[in-house]
């Protein structure tokens, strides 16, 4: 992708959730809907429709229903009303997992957006081997978080890990990154940020390249340089894209699970035990499917709030 072609495109079309796509084609002259056309349309949609009804709409309604029961693995269940929700409010584990999730989000989002913005700005000003560097920065994104977790677990290892070897050379440490309650979330957030920053970097880069050259050139003529130009010209223009990236990463952070599953098993002292891990354990270790479904609904509500904020603010910016 060259600067030219990217510049012609506007800021990224965010995920479909955020912004409605172009209107459905209404260009054809109004005429009675032909039955044949309708039948063909339905037939072509049918396979996907069936999949959605069974595997998307069904489970979503099912989640709400299950959360009102005490469904067990064996398949017996009783309707227990809002009991699961009442229990949830009094469950220290729930609140602690929610707290861990929020704290993790606070570590992860600035870290990953900072990294993405930094690398995007670097790439934006680079001419030399830009495609190569963009590829390098993006590479971790195409791997799995499990892979990242496996590698970084060794990097953080208190006895043999790379990081402690480096610290050892500097006569520091050893630091037990994953065994220390205060360090474990930043350490995992760094792993996830390494794995994922390439995505937001590309979005931000496209955003940067869509800023008309004249604007920045005008700023240069006005004497704005370096940091000032970034602070007062580039960032304000980048705001909608930056905001989109922030929300997307926050939504992702709230669903964190894989990294903890591989790196810490939630420890030490549940310092890295997030909401989805609690949901997973409740379902697949305690077999308490009703309660786990209630937890799922909480997760849904949190993500919904994020999405609505995003919609609202992006709508305002346009």
């Amino acid at each position, binding site marked *: 992708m060259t600067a030219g072609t990217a510049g012609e495109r506007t800021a990224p079309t965010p995920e479909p959730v955020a912004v409605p*796509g172009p209107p459905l084609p209404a260009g054809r002259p109004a005429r009675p809907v032909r039955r044949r056309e309708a039948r063909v349309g339905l037939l072509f949609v049918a396979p996907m429709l069936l999949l959605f009804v069974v595997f998307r709409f069904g489970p979503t309604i099912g989640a709400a229903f299950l959360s009102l029961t005490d469904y067990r693995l064996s398949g017996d269940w009783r309707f227990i009303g809002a009991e699961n929700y009442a229990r949830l409010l009094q469950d220290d584990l729930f609140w602690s997992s929610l707290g861990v999730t929020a704290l993790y989000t606070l570590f992860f989002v600035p870290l990953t957006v900072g990294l993405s913005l930094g690398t995007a700005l670097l790439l934006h000003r680079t001419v030399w081997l830009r495609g190569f560097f963009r590829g390098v920065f993006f590479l971790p994104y195409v791997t799995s978080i499990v892979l990242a977790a496996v590698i970084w677990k060794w990097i953080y290892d208190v006895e*043999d890990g790379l990081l402690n070897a480096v610290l050892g050379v500097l006569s520091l440490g050893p630091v037990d990154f994953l065994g220390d309650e205060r360090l474990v979330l930043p350490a995992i957030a760094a792993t996830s940020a390494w794995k994922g920053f390439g995505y937001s970097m590309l979005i931000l880069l496209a955003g940067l390249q869509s800023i008309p050259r004249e604007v920045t050139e005008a700023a240069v003529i006005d004497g704005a340089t370096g940091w000032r130009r970034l602070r007062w010209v580039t960032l304000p223009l980048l705001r909608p894209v930056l905001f989109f990236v922030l929300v997307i990463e926050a939504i992702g952070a709230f669903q964190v699970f894989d990294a903890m599953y591989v790196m810490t098993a939630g420890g030490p002292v549940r310092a890295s035990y997030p909401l989805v891990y609690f949901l997973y354990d409740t379902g697949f270790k305690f077999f308490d499917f009703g309660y786990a479904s209630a937890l799922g609904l909480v997760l849904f509500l949190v993500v919904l709030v994020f999405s609505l904020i995003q919609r609202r603010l992006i709508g305002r910016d346009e």
Partner: protein
Amino acid sequence: MARLRLPVLLVLVALVTMTPFAVMVLVAFAPPGGRTLPGAFDLTRATWENFSAVLSGADVTRWAANSLVYSLVSVVLILLFSSMAGYAFAKKRFPGREVLFWSFLATLMVPFQATLIPYFVLVSRLGGVDTYWGLIVPTLANSQAVFLMRQFIAQLPDELFEAAKIDGASEWRIYTTVVLPLITPVLATLGVFVFLWHWNDFLWPLVIGQSSAMRTLTVGLATLEGENVAVNQVMAGATITVLPCLLVFGLLQRYLTDSIATTGLKS
């Protein structure tokens, strides 16, 4: 000096980004037991031993086959069903079209983890636990794919289809001979993404694959790690896991990076 600052910074950040991959490969090739620095970095002692150990001990080949089945079958079916749906949503009028399309999209607001339990209950009741279909079929309902297809096909001029229709071609024929060739670029892009999503997927294969024989490579890697296999072997396994991603990346980097910037596709 100031002119050099940018490239130096770039190279530094690139080096840091690549370091984890580098240590993975170095530890994977280090002699067994050579997990500590600097022993692991002695290239003269590099060996394939960890790879042969991990390949002969655990069922890495079976997991890799499962991952391939999971990813490739999903790619083919998602491309087929989503392009069919996208074509209908973009070019056909039928009652409930708008409602359907938007309710497909609305499911994006529901995180997968939130419906994990009913999902699992449903699939296990249907007998899908520990089967390929149980692994694959539920992941085919992909709204991003439908969305992307509809957007792309909507941009194609109607005349292209009208001409074929006048020639008396059946709808299925129009779809296979006119629509599919026209949407090749978006099929390629989406195909790459779907492949990576499935290859790297963790939570669903973790809960649905009960026996070792039904694990995917990503889940298998996590269990290798959990079972405390020697670090050298885990890293050898990790290296094997990442190879297809690197291959796809190397071949199709441009498709990937361009399409994120323009469509915001994200797993």
